[in-house]
């Protein structure tokens, strides 16, 4: 399998912003065009495992839309209506996934080059990196709760909701505070509080690929805006 493209994180952020604005006001055909372009962009940038899921959602929309127009059944119409809203965001979600996969250090260096406040850069990078970890923590707490017989949908869960509430939230809160302490120590060790400008081993610079992506994005924007 070919290696993913190496893009400047600022290009990735620019793609997310432009796609985010373009999805509004687009017809279904234009959304399909946007989706095809971002799917190719995602594929070239290493988003390969989740790509079939996006395609499946798109197929679900077309299927429910077809049945909605044929049968006028309220279930299909509702499904088509809600899946349309999800389909609207697929191109932006794909572009967002490419950005989320960027290593935190590289993203921080790129945002520093844009002279964004340090508070925003650190908070944004940490929260992006922590979203999947938060999911893992919640799942592992639920696993332990199941072993102790206080799972959400167990008998105890229905009979003593307060106990379940406490058993779920207290370990999560303790864990979040512990992780925040560890991350703070790690950030301070790496000089996050230093008053001088942050240096990085990552070379933040626009390459040929970045210019090509920006040019293609400008062409796409022009085509879509002219067609409206």
């Amino acid at each position, binding site marked *: 399998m070919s290696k993913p493209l190496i893009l400047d994180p600022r290009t990735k952020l620019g793609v997310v912003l432009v796609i985010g604005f373009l999805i509004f006001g687009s017809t279904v055909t234009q959304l399909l065009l946007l989706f095809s372009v971002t799917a190719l962009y995602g594929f070239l940038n290493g988003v390969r495992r989740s790509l079939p899921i996006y395609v499946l959602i798109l197929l679900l929309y077309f299927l429910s839309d077809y049945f909605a127009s044929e049968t006028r059944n309220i279930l299909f119409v509702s499904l088509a209506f809600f899946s349309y809203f999800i389909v609207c965001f697929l191109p932006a979600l794909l572009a967002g996934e490419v950005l989320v996969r960027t290593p935190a250090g590289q993203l921080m260096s790129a945002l520093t080059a844009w002279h964004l406040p340090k508070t925003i850069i650190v908070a944004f990078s*940490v929260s992006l990196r922590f979203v999947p970890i938060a999911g893992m923590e919640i799942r592992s707490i639920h696993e332990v709760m199941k072993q102790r017989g206080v799972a959400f949908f167990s008998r105890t869960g229905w009979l003593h909701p307060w106990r379940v509430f406490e058993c779920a939230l207290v370990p999560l809160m303790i864990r979040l505070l512990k992780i925040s302490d560890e991350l703070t120590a790690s*950030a301070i060790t790496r000089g996050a509080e230093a008053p001088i400008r942050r240096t990085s081993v990552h070379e933040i610079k626009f390459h040929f690929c970045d210019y090509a992506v920006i040019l293609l994005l400008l062409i796409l924007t022009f085509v879509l805006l002219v067609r409206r």
Partner: protein
Amino acid sequence: MRKKFLGIRDVVTIAIFTAAIMMIGSALSKVFGVLSFLTAGGAILVSGAVISFLTAPLFLLMVLKVGKHGAIFLHSILYGFIFLLAGLPHMVIFYALVGLIGEAMMMPRGSGYRHVFRSGLACSVFLSVKSLHPAAILWIIGNYNPQGVHGYTAAQIAKMMDIYFNPITVGLIFVLTFVGSAIGSFAGARLLRRHFVKSGILQINE
């Protein structure tokens, strides 16, 4: 000496709690999205209340642990940035305004950020205003392109929008979420006193 402005520790704490609150919120939103099919949209009315009830203790702990002005605003802005990645750049403005409302609740300087009742009230107001974000998303999409589905006519979509933007519906969502988050804050404060204040992890003013 305590720093007056947000330090690295505070920023990391806010970022981590924001990610956790976001995870819980998005998981429950998916459940309520499915339930709304079965209850003809009724689940949408209570989804904000349930999500706020469960996330209020986390929000309260975040606010009390950081204990400095700017915590609610940064949390809100981060929420907006995460929506930006999902293709909704407009939501950054919505969340900036919601964050300012949350900060305004703590405005008289003093021990606001360490006071359980004040923090709980700010949490309830903040989460109630935040619960209107699906309405904001619908408004944005509805205004741009209301005809994406063949089964619906423009008139039907306009009617749907009318139902959602009916002052009674919006008011009901706001009130239910306020009640949910107030109960969540109360329960959260009890948990914090029992497990965190006693062990010295957290210092609060009653």
